[in-house]
């Protein structure tokens, strides 16, 4: 694209104020929604405190047990995780943690419902929480079955006020826990990290040791992503050899060691054997985005088509002076992309505002969405794709105008 055509594109947009305004409203709204969605997905799937190592983390979130007369899918039990991810060769660390549990804190006459996770001490080494005061509970605390808890600053403020909390106790579900540390609040989108209070797993009963299904998730920290295939292979071998003593003959156990995205996808389709779940989910996301773009794109296509007659003499002139169809298509698509990039820039500003609003409402607990360089990059890519997607057909129609008719200001 040369400077003259760039200037032309901007002048055409400036001259056609109503067209530009209508187009920009549609484009901006579309891109705001897509950029907000991108920011939320980025907040879930891209590494960020306290999941700074998310790129190296693999999860076990679902176990399926199948036999002739049974099909059962659930979260893994403690025993299953002990046999499948404990000391995986090549892994840097592993940990188990429960799914979110609602726990009640009694503070004076107050009854405060809170979200709790039970975790292993190694959990604190895999995730890098920001400790405002105190420190994580230790293997010694765990071994001694000490009632210690880590709480967020938000919970501290609610239960104890804003002063120092370490060493004080809270009544959690009728039991007194000593606060060992206070961490900065965590957004709910940081799935493996989110809770308001964390306590040790505590005494591991024989029943827990045997449990194939339960309420746990497992996390493995690899040394690098390159180790993922080997870790997954070893995990699959362990699952294939997993034969709990109390299983009925013919029962097969299935599970997967998944990246954050795969871990979200696998339970969604309720099928631990479906290794393509991530692909299916990715396809659904892309299809939804495309579907969402289609209506405003059609609107833009219609607006562009209505302008063909207005631009017809220019097309005739360009053809007369040697512009091939392909060059004209490129010119008009580029003009449309400039329009969508303008919409993208506006959308970016409104996305920042929308995310700030989301962060300040309780709609998503402890939301900390922001627009980083990656989200900005994705946003601009979406804007360019939207520009090409909605610009190609009108550009193709314009470029195939008969030059004689075009010079007469004429019909398609």
């Amino acid at each position, binding site marked *: 694209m040369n400077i003259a055509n760039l200037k*032309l594109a901007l002048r055409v947009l400036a001259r056609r104020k109503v067209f530009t305004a209508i187009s920009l409203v549609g484009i901006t709204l579309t891109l705001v929604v897509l950029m907000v969605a991108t920011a939320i997905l980025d907040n879930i799937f891209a590494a960020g405190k306290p999941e700074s190592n998310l790129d190296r983390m693999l999860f076990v979130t679902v176990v399926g047990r199948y036999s002739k007369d049974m099909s059962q899918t659930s979260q893994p039990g403690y025993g299953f995780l002990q046999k499948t991810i404990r000391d995986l060769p090549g892994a840097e660390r592993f940990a188990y943690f429960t799914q979110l549990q609602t726990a009640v804190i009694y503070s004076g006459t107050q009854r405060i419902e809170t979200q709790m996770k039970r975790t292993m001490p190694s959990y604190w080494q895999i995730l890098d929480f920001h400790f405002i005061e105190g420190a994580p509970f230790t293997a010694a605390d765990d071994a001694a079955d000490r009632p210690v808890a880590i709480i967020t600053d938000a919970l501290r403020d609610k239960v104890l006020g804003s002063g120092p909390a370490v060493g004080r106790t809270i009544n959690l579900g009728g039991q007194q826990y000593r606060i060992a540390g206070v961490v900065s609040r965590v957004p709910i989108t940081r799935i493996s990290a989110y809770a308001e209070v964390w306590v040790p797993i505590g005494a591991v009963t024989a029943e827990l040791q045997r449990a194939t299904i339960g309420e746990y998730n497992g996390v493995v920290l690899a040394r690098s992503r390159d180790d993922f295939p080997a870790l997954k292979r070893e995990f699959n071998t362990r699952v294939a050899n997993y034969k709990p003593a109390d299983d009925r003959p013919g029962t097969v156990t299935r599970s997967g060691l998944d990246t954050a995205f795969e871990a979200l996808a696998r339970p969604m389709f309720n099928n631990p054997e479906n290794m393509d779940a991530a692909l299916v989910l990715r396809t659904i996301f892309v299809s939804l985005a495309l579907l969402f773009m289609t209506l405003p794109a059609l609107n833009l296509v219609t607006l562009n088509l209505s302008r063909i007659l207005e631009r017809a003499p220019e097309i005739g*002139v360009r053809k007369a002076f040697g512009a*091939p169809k392909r060059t004209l298509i490129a010119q008009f698509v580029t003009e449309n992309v400039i329009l969508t990039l303008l919409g993208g820039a506006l959308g970016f500003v409104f996305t920042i505002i929308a995310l700030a609003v989301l962060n300040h409402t309780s709609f998503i607990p402890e939301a900390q969405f922001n627009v980083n360089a990656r989200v900005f990059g994705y946003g601009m890519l979406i804007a360019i794709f939207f520009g090409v997607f909605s610009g190609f057909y009108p550009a193709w129609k314009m470029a195939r105008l008969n030059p004689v008719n075009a010079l007469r200001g004429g019909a398609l």
Partner: protein
Amino acid sequence: MITLNNIDKVYRTERVETLALQNINLDIADGEFVSIMGPSGCGKSTLLNLIGLLDKPTHGKLLLDGMHINGAGDRSLAKMRNEKLGFVFQSFHLVPDLTVLDNVEIPLLYRKIAAGERKKLALAALDRVGLSSRVHHFPTQLSGGQQQRVAIARAIVGKPRIVLADEPTGNLDSAMGDEIMGILQELNEKDGTTVVMVTHDDRFAQQTGRTIRLFDGRQVA
């Protein structure tokens, strides 16, 4: 330079078939200044469009510089138009959102020419038509005669061998018309550019080397 053999041009719609040109045979030599005359609707512009490769004949052969153009595709037609032909239109057809300089650069955009060189050539073409002082104006800021001079600069900036002018004086008063005619004559005489001009004005036709007369799509002289 330009050869038309038994050229017919038929326009078809669902209901009507219009014979716009019938059995046209024409040779235009390199360096000629030819005018095409005839009443409205006789096919003058259609003939010019065929010569300018903007349209294709229904029957017959058209050769430009010895090359058959009948079967040529979009890219090669575009290349031939860009390199060999320059157009001047009755209603100027300047792009309103581009400056005079940017308008004149249009033909060069479709050649591999650097921006600096494009600007140099465009300024030279504008200088030739006496409009160096208006390069940053927009077409609507110019008079009709000035706009047509910009259009001529655009037609000659790529140094084509042939300039096709479709009633270039039709929208101008006689003084302006004379001015434009003078520029076309100079192009023909000094540069040896072949000029084919459609005109209604006998006075201008008499100033050309040869006049082709059409009537009802037929060549009558």
